[in-house]
């Protein structure tokens, strides 16, 4: 669940972003749109608790952000937020297995090999555990990165441009994979994208066309961005 009210963020340079209010129920899907520079990344960073809002309030998965200290926010993020970055950022120095172990290291919790196995299995890449990222295809690498994102069973899954540089077929697959993975975990899903194909694919996936599950948030690259008309 993600609720924001009068959310603002001020850059160090002085520019200020105003974000439209959202209310995404737990398990819902939010499509975050808008051109580059409109503040999509900033919004993701706010939801992940990486930066603090300069005004307004933000509740994510039942937690009011800004109320926790820095270290507690980090621990909260480790357990609550799953993140699939556009560039995947799988460490080339480590095997797939160890890339997933990184998540435990980052969270500061004990290693759990069984959980890694389960996460890789669920995405059909368990037999790639001993490979290095350079030995993976683009689709395999994305699945591994997604397995890392959901390793801690997050309540919110954030995906940043997951379909960039994918052909239509693979893009549809990627969106479907995100949707089913989030659905399986009961996690809220946020997809930041300016790719129209994502919306189309999601509508096709909706059980019984239940549009209530989906929300759209479109940002504009102006100093006083407003909600989509």
């Amino acid at each position, binding site marked *: 669940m993600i609720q924001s009210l009068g959310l603002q963020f001020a850059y160090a340079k002085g520019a200020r972003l105003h974000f439209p209010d959202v209310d995404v129920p737990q398990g819902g899907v939010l499509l975050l749109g808008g051109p580059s520079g409109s503040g999509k*990344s900033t919004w993701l960073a706010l939801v992940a608790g990486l930066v603090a809002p300069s005004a307004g309030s933000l509740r994510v998965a039942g937690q009011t952000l800004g109320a926790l200290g820095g270290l507690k926010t980090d621990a909260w993020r480790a357990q609550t937020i799953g993140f699939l970055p556009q560039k995947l950022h799988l460490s080339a120095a480590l095997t797939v297995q160890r890339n997933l172990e990184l998540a435990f290291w980052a969270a500061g919790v004990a290693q759990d090999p069984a959980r890694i196995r389960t996460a890789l299995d669920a995405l059909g890449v368990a037999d790639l555990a001993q490979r290095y990222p350079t030995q993976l295809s683009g689709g395999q690498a994305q699945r591994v990165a997604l397995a890392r994102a959901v390793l801690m069973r997050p309540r919110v899954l954030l995906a940043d441009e997951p379909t960039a540089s994918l052909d239509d077929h693979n893009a549809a697959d990627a969106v479907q994979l995100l949707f089913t993975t989030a659905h399986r975990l009961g996690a809220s899903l946020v997809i930041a994208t300016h790719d129209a194909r994502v919306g189309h694919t999601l509508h096709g996936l909706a059980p019984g066309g239940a549009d209530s599950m989906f929300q759209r948030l479109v940002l504009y690259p102006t100093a006083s961005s407003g909600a989509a008309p």
Partner: protein
Amino acid sequence: MNTLALSWRYLWARPLAATLNVLLLGLGLASITFLLLVAHQVERAFDRDLAGIDVVVGAKGSPMQLILSGVLHLDVPPGNVPLAAVQALQKNPLVAEVIPISLGDNFQSYRIVGSPPAYPALYQAALAQGRMWRAPMEAVLGATVARTLGLRLGDSFVGSHGLGAGGHAHGDSTYTVVGVLAANASVLDRLILTDTASVWKVHEDYTAVDAEDRKAMEAEREVTLALVRYKSPLAAMSFPRWVNANTEMQAAAPALEVTRLLHMLGLGTDVLRAFAGMLLLTAGLSVFIALWNAVRERRGDLALLRMLGAPPGRIAALLLAEALWLGLMAALLGLALGQCFVLALGQMLGLDQSLLLGAALWPAELLWVPALALGVSLGAALLPALGAYRSDVLQLLQSR
């Protein structure tokens, strides 16, 4: 995976840079190790050979030469002094013991030293075989001499004149080996000991033309120098001055001269130390550049770790741990290389024979090496670690 294991993997993800840095840092530390070891071993060797000798009395000349020739047996003596004058020293109330030493001959460039049994007793030398000399022309070999020349009890040899090889051989004056000393890591190991009278006998037999001539020579017998022990340390205030003023001889305090010598060597080691410092500085810069680049290259990975919930401190620790590994490996390499350098130098210059340099030792000063290694590597990692600590995740998310 814990932080140490993870940093180890990141380090070796760039094997060339890692190897280069370990080598560079290791070489700097090897020079430091080398300097520490040489200083330690030389000082130890000198201390050992001074063995409670308070002052050395010999012919006038350079006091350092007197010590180098009479105590350390590294140089030729300045000259001889009359036996009578040395015996007179024994009457001085400040003096506990006088040990006359006669030099002049060698065998295969090992010095033949004429002395009373009190001389080996100074070094607590024990016999490995045979017995001490009792008569002129009986010789007791130091352990190194016996080993290198392969001489055994009952063997005989002819000394040559002078202190280096190639002197005139004293044809009919033959020494007989009656004992071999146990190795005791002192100057004795490379000496051939014999009775003081042997040296006189050799030269008198050689030069005397008739019995009368021999008598005259006996009256003018000389020794090279005398090792003196005081009754009380207070004698150091007045005894050398008394000798220098009232006799034709000079007195030199070994402790003083060795300190002077080490000080002169110190000027040389200062240059080496500055050089080692430069190497370490270069290595530190190289480690800094490597880690700085690592942070730049891995900015995305580090930002992702923040996204995965790693606090900034844990990410900074990751970089520090990487530097720690570098420092640790370099310290081991530096210590090993430094020991090898010392062994090689000892063998090349033949200093292992004189026991100045050689055996691998681990004096406490060597703790400086790992301390320096960690200091340099962690110091070099500080700024990159701070950079990693402060990495702006937001900016990274935005840069596509």
